[in-house]
């Protein structure tokens, strides 16, 4: 059955979009083990984010050893 989309529906949909796009924060870990897993997961995610950055092979780290 064809359902008529009203202006009210469109307004509600538009209002819901920012909330849908916003990832809700993870719950606060309940114990040290959960905390550890959460931090490890964060560091893994950071590593994945860094891996996506393409670098010229010649780019050296921003710190150098001097004899």
């Amino acid at each position: 059955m064809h359902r008529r989309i009203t202006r009210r529906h469109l307004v509600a949909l538009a209002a819901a979009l920012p909330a849908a796009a916003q990832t809700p924060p993870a719950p606060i870990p309940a114990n040290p083990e959960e905390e550890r897993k959460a931090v490890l997961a964060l560091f893994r995610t950071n590593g994945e984010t860094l891996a996506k950055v393409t670098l010229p092979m010649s780019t050296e780290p921003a710190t150098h050893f001097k004899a």
Partner: protein
Amino acid sequence: MAHIDDSIFFATITEVNAKLKAKEFSAVELARAFSDRLERLGPRYNALALSLREAVIRKAKDVDGEIKRERFRGPLQGVPFAVKDLLSVEGHPTTWGAKPYAGQVIDETATVVTKLNKLGGLLTGKLAMVELAGGPSYRYAAASLQGPGLNPWDRTRWSGGSSSGSGIAVAAGLATYALGSETSGSILTPSAFCGVTGLRPTYGLVSRHGAMALSWTMDKIGPLCRSVEDCGLVLQAIAGADSNDPASANKSFYYTPQFARPMKDIVIGFAPVDFSDWAEPAARPDLQKAFDLIKQLGVQVKETKLPDFPYGAMAQTIIAAEGASIFEPLIQSGRVDELADQKQIAGLKAGLEIPAKDYLKAMRIRTLVQRAFRELFADVDVLVTPSRFGPAPKLSQPLDRPLSDRPSPQDRGMSGLIPAGNLAGLPALSLPCGLAEGMPVGISLVTRPFGEGLLLAVGREFQARTDWHKRRPPVS
């Protein structure tokens, strides 16, 4: 015995020094008065780590002798100051704000403290801080041996950190100025939340020798003061080469406001979204007014975008990896579990598991970040953004969660400037610029490396036209 008026606790460096030289009171009387106040009020805000009353009174006697003989050492002579308890003072405890180090005594005085002592400064005490300077991250304001820093403007709110005691001490008149440190936000945040003027110097300008290391490549020592002028005077005293700091830039700094560039020659970069959407609604009016005032100084303005890099992931990786390496003995011994904050404990342990490839990748991207900022500062002299997007949070608020339900703006603006600026080693100045919900808010200026003079010039013009830096919290 001279009567010391309460106004002295909120006087600037120059004012205090002038009154001493005019013999309105002696350095000993001043040292006693500030020590009394620090000991009486410091604990009210969880700001005090250690009073150095006996030592400072001994020092004050020397200062009185020198002033009597007209042996003047400059504007910092006889001026009471206090330092974040990550700076060591020989023979006295240095706790790093952390229970495992509560009894630690380091038999060496930090370079910056030695420099201020040589100029006749009166070190009255060590100030509370977030444990281990908050690295790699923490969840609650209570992450400290001394408990949560309580904001002098409203003790149900946080002072900001990790230089919590430093922000409190200056705001509440417990010291004329303080030293703090920043790895990523730890000078700018308490400065903004407590309504004081804070300066994060260029990486390498100020010696880190004698300061607890959290991140070798990101730690900086800097002043929190009552004015831009005071920041300039303190930076001049503490900056400079130090062979004991491998990261020393071997550069000095001279505070020369008389040679400041004309405002019309200065280009300010900004992102409108910072003031319209990122700023919390209560803070927007005064932040916008502050930016409007900066424009009225006669500067040129230019909409600017931050170079696009994953600053958060980079900063977290570098700080966590370096911090875990530094504190490896603490972690491996299990004493890390004595820290107050569960997230901090977990972060330090997990930091030892960060792969070398991630750390090296972050450090390589960092080279590109520096290059990108060099290009940015070819067109723009100073970036302006809110120091923090809202006032200090309530003490119970988890600091790693959004403060409101407002969705984050799509346009990043300069929201990443704290990690970005710290990754690139850039200097920054936070200026009190208004109130939101009765609490201070600040605006930050950031510039190219070793451009502190430029920051101070713009900041000085701003403070000549405003009085936010003179406002005081309701301290009885």
